[in-house]
């Protein structure tokens, strides 16, 4: 094995040790309200569909206005029929405007992911 490929392997191993926490497992596949979408009425819930099952106890959804104020939202649970769907109830009707959903999830194979997206409630 050449010195070059040895150093490549060493570099990859080092990269892996540093980067492993940041790499993703449960990916967001679909959201209701949709990522970047516009809804005409205040949504009753935020529904996130992931690429694999998630652990509700270690997953969370937060909702904030454009100005950064936190909107009250229920503790998330999974759809009883599908543990890859995370649902949180929106407690109060949302006024027209743009909102940011910030989520984090632990997949059933124990890996962490996070992300955020916006949606708009039309006036």
């Amino acid at each position, binding site marked *: 094995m050449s010195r070059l490929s040895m150093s490549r392997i060493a570099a990859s191993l080092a990269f892996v*040790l540093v980067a492993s926490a940041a*790499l993703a497992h449960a990916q967001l596949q679909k959201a209701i309200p949709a990522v970047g979408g516009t809804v005409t009425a205040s949504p009753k819930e935020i529904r996130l569909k992931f690429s694999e099952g998630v652990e509700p106890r*270690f997953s969370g959804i937060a909702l904030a206005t454009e100005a950064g104020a936190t909107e009250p939202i229920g503790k998330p649970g999974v759809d009883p029929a599908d543990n890859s769907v995370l649902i949180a109830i929106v407690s109060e009707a949302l006024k027209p405007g743009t909102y940011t959903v910030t989520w984090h999830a632990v*997949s*059933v194979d124990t890996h962490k992911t996070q992300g955020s997206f916006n949606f708009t409630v039309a006036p």
Partner: protein
Amino acid sequence: MPTALIVCRLLHFAATMLLFGASGFLWALAPAGLARELAGPVRRMAGVAIVVAAFTAFAWLALEAGEMGEGWSDSVNPETLSAVAFETAFGQVWLWRMGLALVLLIALATGRHDRWAFTVPAAALLLASLGLVGHAAMQSGLAGALHRLNHGVHLLCAGAWLGSLPPLIFCLMRYGAPRLRSEIGLTLRRFSGLGHFVAALVVLTGIVNTAWTLGAWPVDFSSPYQMLLALKIAIVAAMLVMALVNRYILTPRIKGQTGAALRAIAINSVAEIGLGIAALALVSIFGTLAPV
């Protein structure tokens, strides 16, 4: 934090495989006379393996709590630990595994871990149940069940192969003793027969695992997961070559009591153990990565 989990995984895989493979070798392959000779060393190996496997089983839960939570503080936070143990899919499996590790630890503490008819099946359960967590747990339904079953078989075969190498080397070193020679010869023939089957299953279940987890051949080396998996496959291929050299080139050359062939087989087997540990280290790393 990820590094601690990787080290914990490596130690746990190695200890569980040694426990299953070494005690299984003694229990299933060695005739009575050789078994008496092997009992002492295997008993000590199994004792160390039980302690390491049990300690790392508990440590793994704590490190997992830190991974799922906010880091080191959650590794020792009773609330997070209990949430991981009782409220996650991982915990459902892990509670049973920790219970089993505790039973083995009690057997060791009371000096009964050399009742192989108990220890071998318990070690098999401890090893195979690792297939219920991790990437094999990402599918649900029938596909998920088959993936877990396949992974369990993969773990058992890898453990049978790697864990039986230390007692095998012990047998090779004792080959010079005339009173044991026929029994050691018989054990080596049994090991060879089973070895073909086990090694073939390791490869087969490994391919199925890759197909299910990755869905492609690991040839895209820009992905750390695929690069490390490809490296692991290369290592296992080298181990297969060494095992075949041992069986088909060196074994027919064994003549007399010691000889170069016997020594070469022992050296090859030690190298095989080294490569096997390297393979376990790689899977300890890429098992924590996204399979993309």
